[in-house]
């Protein structure tokens, strides 16, 4: 099947003259879990924002499989919830902006909340929840429209290790259940290897992809996988590639 979107020769320069991305070629394949891995300032978040339509490329094109951008969900590094609205109304937002009343949206809101394990928290306010729970609400909100493409910008970077590992597993389970495509920005080699079917490794100044590696491991991942030789091998490959990226940056 054709990729959902192809990025061809995409570049992004800002008004201050900084080139965030240069000559980016990247396909997002249907059904994959693609990680964008790289040091800070390598333009991986900018690439994600361009796929979301939140930023326009200065050069190059995005070619969509169905001629237009499909339904997209976006999860930010912070939970980015409206503090004045309870969990139900936060998850309602994407539907509300499509003119679906709260009553008509109720079943879909409840389904999204139970998917992320927050069935009993619809009436709670964000400040009453832990960091991990807020991130779950944020994921439920992104999933409530059942997007074909879920974009995540370092969603678990601010969470503690234990919560992050739990959310990693829950996200993989959700992906299997919903059969969605995920593009996931991270700076953690271990997280990207554990989660991904493919990793695009970025270098900085200017931001570009220097290597793409396929993770040759079964699609089903669990805690066993973290201890396996295959995981270690892949982590070693990704680490080496990332070091290559840092080297490339040091000697332009």
């Amino acid at each position, binding site marked *: 099947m054709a990729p959902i979107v192809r990025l061809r020769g995409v570049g992004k320069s800002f008004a201050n003259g900084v080139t965030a991305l240069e000559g980016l070629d990247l396909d997002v394949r249907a059904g994959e879990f693609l990680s964008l891995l790289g040091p800070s300032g390598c333009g991986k978040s900018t690439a994600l924002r361009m796929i979301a339509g939140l930023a326009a490329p200065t050069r190059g094109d995005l070619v969509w499989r169905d001629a237009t951008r499909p339904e997209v969900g*976006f999860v930010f590094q*912070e939970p980015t919830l409206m*503090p*004045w*609205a309870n969990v139900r109304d936060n998850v309602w937002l994407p539907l509300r*902006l*499509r003119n679906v009343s709260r009553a008509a949206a109720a079943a879909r809101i409840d389904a999204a909340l139970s998917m992320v394990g927050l069935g009993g928290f619809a009436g709670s306010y964000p400040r009453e929840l832990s960091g991990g729970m807020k991130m779950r609400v944020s994921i439920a909100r992104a999933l409530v429209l059942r997007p074909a493409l879920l974009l995540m910008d370092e969603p678990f970077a601010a969470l503690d290790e234990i919560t992050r590992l739990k959310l990693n597993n829950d996200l993989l389970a959700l992906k299997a259940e919903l059969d969605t495509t995920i593009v996931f920005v991270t700076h953690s080699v271990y997280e990207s290897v554990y989660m991904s079917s493919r990793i695009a490794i970025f270098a900085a100044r200017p931001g570009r992809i220097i290597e793409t590696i396929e993770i040759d491991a079964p699609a089903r991942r669990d805690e066993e996988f973290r201890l396996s030789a295959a995981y270690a091998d892949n982590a070693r490959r990704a680490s080496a590639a990332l070091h290559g990226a840092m080297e490339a940056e040091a000697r332009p």
Partner: protein
Amino acid sequence: MTRQRLLDWTPPVIVFIAMLGLWEFIVWFNAIPPYVLPAPSLIARTLVNDWDTLFASMLVTLRITFEALVAAVVGGGLLALLFARWRWVERSFFPFAVVLQVTPIVAIAPLLLVYLESETAVLVCAFLVAFFPILSNTALGLASTDHNLVDLFDLYKASGFRQLMLLRLPAALPYFLGGLRIGGGLALIGAIVAEIAAGSAGQGAGLAYRIVESGFRLNIPRMFAALTLISATGILIFLLFSALSWALLSRWHDSARDRGG
């Protein structure tokens, strides 16, 4: 919790009663005549005896304060919205708002009295001082909306109007209420200052006019009684807006968070 609250309130109440007692004692012990310094008991009696006049004046002051506040909320709020929508409006008008803010109202009041009926002039003075904190706070609130939430609204292609109603206005609400609390106190001060500058008023004489009038008649106890009511009015306004903030924000905003036991 209630026990703790009782303990919190006990010291200031004791200090208040002790100071009144000391005042009463000094006046009695030195036999100070009431036209120099009235005792608290005499002020209380005056407050009761002249209640009809004073209470009517208090209502006048309250009415002017709230009319000015409503005008400041409408004017300041709308201008803040224009500022948030178009930067050039902010650049064009904000300097003049600052000029109005930094010019002491007591210096503007006599000028306004030249051109306006005294009651209108009092209203305009109260409006001028309440306007700026509401404008600047609301403008700040509208400008400090979480940029990720703005991105989210863009992602779902929300119209500018829905972004305003569902995102920018709720995000600005705590700032607006902060401005309202400051503006409420200032509107009262503006009304009092202007009334004193006016020196006289026809039918609707406020509390400040009662002070001026009692001063002319050397009715010092009544001056104190009117002053007491002005303080009470200020406290009332403050409590009212604190309660409003609490009612609107307590569920979600950190400023209204209950840190008690």
